[in-house]
């Protein structure tokens, strides 16, 4: 049980996918202008990443390793994640329209999200068990949402600051992201 706790803490804070591993920066900058969008995106990432983590783990174990085709990992994972997102989109539209209305516009964005791909690859690299990779996928996604929501909050406040003209908007966003990242570096000492 303690191992899982350490795993969760390290995935959310220490190895935060956005601020420590620098994956998924496009949605980090693109959907962080408004808190509302950031929350929507965060939820969609949690939703998709848990499923993608499970699916890619299964594909890796029962197809790639079994037939000794690990070199196909990247291309197979891309295919699977894309298909999965499409499938989930269709499923939600039919079965859970309310959830679709909330997450709908974010789902296609995740198809090409490197954070999702990265977490799937990390799961394999770290040789997690199925349950571990589920937990790590969830925790990475939660870390992603945490960082995104924190960042969106900061950006909403930045509007009130005296920002020099040349640094407005994305420039000050990147500087803020850098500072946030430095802050997260402090967690390195925890474990």
């Amino acid at each position, binding site marked *: 049980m303690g191992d899982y706790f350490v795993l969760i803490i390290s995935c959310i804070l220490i190895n935060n996918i956005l601020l420590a591993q620098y994956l998924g920066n496009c949605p980090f900058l693109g959907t962080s202008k408004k808190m509302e969008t950031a929350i929507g995106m965060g939820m969609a990432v949690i939703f998709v990443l848990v499923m993608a983590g499970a699916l890619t783990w299964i*594909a890796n174990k029962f*197809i790639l390793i079994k*037939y000794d*085709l690990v*070199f*196909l990992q990247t*291309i*197979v994972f891309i*295919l*699977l994640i894309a*298909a999965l997102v*499409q*499938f989930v989109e*269709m*499923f939600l*539209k*039919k*079965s859970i329209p309310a959830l679709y209305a909330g997450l709908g*516009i974010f789902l296609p964005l995740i198809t090409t999200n490197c954070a999702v791909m990265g977490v799937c690859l990390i799961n394999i690299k770290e040789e997690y068990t199925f349950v571990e990779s589920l937990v790590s996928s969830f925790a990475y996604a939660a870390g992603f949402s945490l960082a995104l929501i924190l960042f969106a909050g900061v950006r*909403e406040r930045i*509007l*009130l*600051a*005296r*920002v020099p003209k040349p640094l*407005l908007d994305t420039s000050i966003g990147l500087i803020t992201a850098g500072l946030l990242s430095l802050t997260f570096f402090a967690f390195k000492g925890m474990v």
Partner: protein
Amino acid sequence: MIEAVLVMMFIGAACGILLSVASKVFYVWEDPRISEVEYYTAGANCGGCGYAGCSAAAAAVVAGKAAPSVCIVGGPESAQKIAAVMGVSAGSAEALRSMNSCSGGFRAADKYFYDGAQTCAALANLHGGRRVCSVGCLGMGDCIRSCKFDAIHMGSEGYPVVDEAKCVGCGACERACPKNILTVRTMSQRLLHFNELDDALAPCQQTCPAEINIPQYIDQIRKGDYAGAVNTIRERNPLLLTCGRVCPHPCENYCRRGIEDEPVSINQLKRFVADWEMNSGRRLPTPCAPDTGRKVAVVGGGPAGVSCAYFLRRLGHNVTIFEAMPKLGGITRYGIPEYRLPDEVLDWEIQGILDLGIEARLNQRLGRDFTLKSLRDEGYEAIFLGIGAWKDLAIGVPGEDQKGCWKGIEFLSQVAGSPDKKIPIGKRCAVVGGGNSAIDCVRTLKRLGAEEVWIVYRRTRKEMPANEVEIVAAEHEGIQFQFLAAPKRVVADAQGRVVGLEYLKMELGEPDASGRRRPVPVEGSETILAVDMVISAIGQQPDQACLNQETKEDRPAITRWNTYDNDPELLQTSLPYLFTAGDAATGPSLVVDAIGGGRRAARSIHQFLTGQPVQTSQMSLRKKHIAESLFKTVPGVVKKARTPMPELHVAERITSMIEVDQVISEKDAAYESNRCLNCCRICYNPDKRVNVA
């Protein structure tokens, strides 16, 4: 190697099959027209239309929320093809237009100074902006940056100005504006909007029963845009020629300049632009929404009925007016004398309204020629009842039915209805009452050649309910006033002809419920005023005899004042399909009240016809004032005399029915419009001295 290819093919095929099965299993029916419409959009997913991609825009078109011209990249060709798919003509859906409702946010005082916040969104987060005004424009230009069409620019006075020619109505500015200043609305939505608590409203606009955007039209006059001013007024009041002449302008009582100086002559400015349009000989085009094909009957062609018909027509409904008299206009034609509102002017105004496509059936009286039931059988889905208040109240004294005794409206309508505006009258006439009808009667009598005309009123001049200007005009014309006199009986000779009016002298006692001092009779003070004609003009009520033919289910509830019992916000009677406004609902009141009521009823009827719940906004302001907008002082105002009303000389006017009040000159209109402080809600900054000095 082969193994790898096979595995990839297998996975690919598995995914493909799974997705195709899923697309069947999880298929959600979509209108096939959506994909057809999408085919004709540019497919660029540019978002310029304001929707999230072309398919979302296509869905909006099919749902009727967007016009066929939605695709701004595709242009007119795409609009025509999409219109063909939808089976409509390309221009038929109403265009959305962005409007800026704040015109002076920069003149409200500052609450704080901080130059860090550089967007409106940021300022809105800091105590709602740095101006004292809670509803006005923040002026940082978020809307300008949001506009993909370059249709908004920062005006010289620091608030955004929309270029209507470039605006496509995408709604981006409305979403960007944190203050609801820029609103993207169709014409119908604008016509259906009533003053609300969080609107940017100057005190005059809050007061006007028709809710005309007064600061805007005065500003347009100042800039020389007379056509724009006419259109601004027409969004709220179709009878601008009439109101420009007869309205007692309650708005001017709340004019902020009036606190320190004489109020702006708002109504003369209205009359100036209205007359400008009429004298130009060319009617400005009035757009109407696409036809809905729904039929509405308007019973009564007075100001309330004409106003209701006008707004319903502009909302796209089919309206028929049923009028009992030979001509439309109601009390404005048959109650207001020719010298205040010439028939020629009224005819021109009403013709313009009928030209929108309204049918008028004249000489059709409710209860005689048709009933509410017969109208419904004819296919009218909703009925507006604006029959006015034409039944004169009797004084209740003996001798009132002698030859030579008249009732106010009866007399005025006889004069108005006769071709040369002349009927035989007495030599010495007395009119009982102190309201506008009484004044209309005496001034008419004077013009018809009466030698001596008296007003007999039981209180004093101070308590007279008539408009001050009317009383003054009557005094100038040599009308004699017998105040503090209550009629006791009408004296007649042996042939039954009136020879005098006996009255009792009164004195003022304690104030009554209306706040006016109650007249108390002085015992034994009976006096006879020698007259040969007596007109009683002491008030009117709606004549409810017209409903005698109706069955019990088709009879609306009536109040104890004989008016229709309706919901004052919605104007719906106890019968869901029946709406009412004007004097028939309120008792005798102002023309402008009837016009505002007509539009209010039109909104309810529109909701009723389109299957929406008949309702109003929670924020409705209706006749109330926003407390923060009423100032006690307006520092910095330098007095500038109000433009006087040009009028005919007394000697000239009392011999004819020629219009007494004349229109002001263009130069005076420019001067008067520059007296307007251009207030909106609370913004007023003496330091800027805009129009102040």
